[in-house]
């Protein structure tokens, strides 16, 4: 039905355009009997004015977009320490862009309007001018030099982590289509891991015999302490993923076969963030929309939507398969005391592995000799030998 409607609309549109051009053609035959299909003074005039109108359109679109969608949620109110630098640089770049955009579009479209063609007019023969070329080479050079310097300064601060620093090491583990996190425990060192160790509850493939792995804890909700540097070590089980934490201005790909890293200091707790006026306004707006939609859904006999409350999120931002669009993990930032309490309640991975194996101990005594398990055991040896 929709396609039929679309086709009808298109056909009508085509007819309308055809008639319009006919009218255009007829009016011109009356006037100049010009059918050369080359622009004449009338075309130059109309399109010249259109160029001016288009300039206005660009400005209106810009202003409309800024007012309507421009809460710039990712240009202010960052939740990490380095986020402030990123935001500053973003603001500087944005303002610069808007200024240059404003001026160049104005010149381009105004010239197109002002110098629209007229029969008998002669253009100025102006082939080159080294001074002008020099000016508009040197200005971008200076401006860009400034941006590059600030950018590289911020980049170096963000990306180069001093290993001796007092950091909490956390592993982010990606797989189609969910996230897990592993805390390194008291020793702050993550136990060795490889996909070849993956078995049962040991979904991250941690080598449970590694002394460093004894106190490692695996969770599916990421908790971070406020004010403490967190060094994320990222791994992937299957394909490329990207750990994107927009509110912290943090992102790094998770690459199978290697460990990548990113570090930041969260400086706002989830509770603080929820009270921030920008977030309060955003949440209220979203809930308004959700309530409206819920009413519609309930009318159709479906389930309504839950109201939304702000949470930090970890999103996957590298195409990773059909359900890429729903690969997320909740992040909770809290005070260091709350964080410690939360973590101490979690069991270690090693104890979970033991608990899983115990009840099976008797029936599964022959399991290691099982044909399906044999190759896994072999590769484990190879990895261990390396």
């Amino acid at each position: 039905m929709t396609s039929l409607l679309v086709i009808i609309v298109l056909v009508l549109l085509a007819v309308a355009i055809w008639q319009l051009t006919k009218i255009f053609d007829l009016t011109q035959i009356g006037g100049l009997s010009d059918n050369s299909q080359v622009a004449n003074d009338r075309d130059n005039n109309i399109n010249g004015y259109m160029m001016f109108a288009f300039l206005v359109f660009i400005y209106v679109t810009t202003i409309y977009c800024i007012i309507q969608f421009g809460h710039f949620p990712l240009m202010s109110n960052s939740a990490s320490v380095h986020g402030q630098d990123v935001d500053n640089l973003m603001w500087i770049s944005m303002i610069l862009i808007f200024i240059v955009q404003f001026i160049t579009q104005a010149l381009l479209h105004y010239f197109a309007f002002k110098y629209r063609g007229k029969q008998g007019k002669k253009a100025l023969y102006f082939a080159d001018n080294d001074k002008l070329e020099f000016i508009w080479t040197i200005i971008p050079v200076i401006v860009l030099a400034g941006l590059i310097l600030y950018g590289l300064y911020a980049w170096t601060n963000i990306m180069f982590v001093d290993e001796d620093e007092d950091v909490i090491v956390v592993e982010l583990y990606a797989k189609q289509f969910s996230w897990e996190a592993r805390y390194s425990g008291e020793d702050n060192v993550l136990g060795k891991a490889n996909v070849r160790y993956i078995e049962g509850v040991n979904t991250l493939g941690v080598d449970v015999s590694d002394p460093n792995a004894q106190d490692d804890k695996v969770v599916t909700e990421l908790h971070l302490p406020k004010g403490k540097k967190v060094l994320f070590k990222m791994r992937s089980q299957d394909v490329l993923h990207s750990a994107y934490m927009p509110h912290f201005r943090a992102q790094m790909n998770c690459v199978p076969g290697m460990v990548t890293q990113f570090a930041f200091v969260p400086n706002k707790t989830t509770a603080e963030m929820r009270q921030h006026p920008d977030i309060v306004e955003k949440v209220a707006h979203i809930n308004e929309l959700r309530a409206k939609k819920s009413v519609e859904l309930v009318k159709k006999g479906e389930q309504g939507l839950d109201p939304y409350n702000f949470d930090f999120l970890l999103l996957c931002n590298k195409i990773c398969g059909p359900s890429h669009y729903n690969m997320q993990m909740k992040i909770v930032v809290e005070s260091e005391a709350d964080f410690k309490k939360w973590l101490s309640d979690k069991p270690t991975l090693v104890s979970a592995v033991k608990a899983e194996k115990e009840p099976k101990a008797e029936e599964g005594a022959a399991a290691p000799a099982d044909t399906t398990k044999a190759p896994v055991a072999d590769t484990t040896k190879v990895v261990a030998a390396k």
Partner: protein
Amino acid sequence: MSAVGHDNDHGHDHEHEHHHKDTFITKYIFSIDHKMIAKQYLITGIIMGIIGVGMSMLFRMQLAWPEESFGVFKFFLGEKFAPGGVMRNDAYLALVTIHGTIMVFFVLTAGLSGTFSNLLIPLQIGARDMASGFMNMISYWLFFLSSLIMVISLFVESGPASAGWTIYPPLSALPQAIPGSGTGMTLWLVSMAIFIASSLMGSLNYVVTVINLRTKGMSMTRLPLTIWAFFITAVIGIVSFPVLLSAALLLIFDRSFGTSFFLSDIYIAGEVLHYQGGSPVLFEHLFWFLGHPEVYIVLLPALGITSEIIATNSRKPIFGYRAMIASILAIAFLSTIVWGHHMFISGMNPFLGSVFTFTTLLIAIPSAVKAFNYITTLWKGNLQMNPAMLFSIGLVSTFITGGLTGIILGDSTLDINVHDTYFVVAHFHLVMGISALYGMFAGIYHWFPRMFGRMLNKNLGYIHFWVTAICAYGVFFPMHFIGMAGLPRRYYTNTAFPLFDDLQNVNVLITVFALVGGAFQLVFLWNFFVSIFYGKKAVQNPWRSNTLEWTAPVEHIHGNWPGELPEVHRWPYDYSKPGFDDDFVPQTVPMKEGEEELHHS
């Protein structure tokens, strides 16, 4: 079959008579005439363009009205990929992937470069044909074959390639990860390998032709900027396309022969795979070593076309001819050392990120020079608002709007947070997608008389331009803002995140603009195909242009010029030169006594 028989009849003539008598097959199908090959490229490009743009309409509808049932989905995707008319999530990814592939390679590389390099290089430098007409023909037919394979891949049972047009492994290597990485991906790789062979043959031909076959008097500093652009584009293609070929071959090895170039330590679908020691980051390097120059392979020809059209229609010399050439060369050089800005957060050493930030932002300088030179060319001109001119001005506008946000994406610090969001989608669609498309439209409106001996209807051209211009901004301008709100690209729907609920109305707005803009391309298609047969007959030099192609007769003949090749006496931009009555002085007009060259060359 009758056509084949016809060919045989004339085979006899070929041996005994020296003047060519074309059969249907040698004239329209296996032609070695560059003008016909250009038309073949153009029409194939347009057909691929219809498929590519059509796909974007479908996935835009899914984004605006997620998981709703549409008759068009059922019609185009079938019950399997759109059960009950609701698009499946892997079908969405397949559409996005093939849309990107088709638009970047098949429309804006082959369709644009193939058409206009073939048409204009011999005609504008005063040559009878390409250096090797036969290789040119092979180049087109390989392109046709690769297009055919790409289209066939849409119909395989497990669906076409769906790992994004960048086909990063392991996703593209493992059918367990996404169904499209099965037969569909194999066909994608085969198609691209053939495409690259085609592109290389074309590029070699363009380079050799420009260097060797220029007519008397046509020095390098008298070449129109179109030729400079095509020439440098071909050089970039020769440098970078083979690297993609090697990446594709290694990926084929990984997929089919169990090697581990790009794969390591993978556990999927309940089992550990044997791959050990490879790195997906290596693939990213190889891919973007082509992938970034590819942007300029797409863009430079469009800028070359724009330079020529803006000068002609402003009735003014292009401002800063030497600076334009210098900036093309600078862009070409820099384009091969900036690929890492696609990989700031790929896990490569952050120090490399610093280097690539530096080189990337440098490329803004020659780009700025070009933009300012275009604007200055308009200044005090006598602008003839032909549709080609409108598209050229439109190109400068979108080139600036899209290019400026490159300052943000090229900066590694800022890229952290907008990488792979809609901000990127907005940026590259404006700066290379729309700009190159405008360049292509401009070229078609301008050289249609040269190709088909008839004029396109200008009023339809005006309608086409203005609606397209408004819709292009309507689609891509708001996209920056949803990108800045953190919405990742390649999401089937954003309903899984209440955080993004307030962006849904923007998505609807974008889709409405996209649908209207897409529908109005039918105006162009109508104009194009009707005018080929019924357009107004063109005069020899309708735009009163200086370049050599307009000195050739309207009717296409083998060898382009009936008698001697034209001789060139001046640069191509003597428009409104003082001392001449006409506001244009063709390149074939000898310098008057005492006449000076008023430009630096």
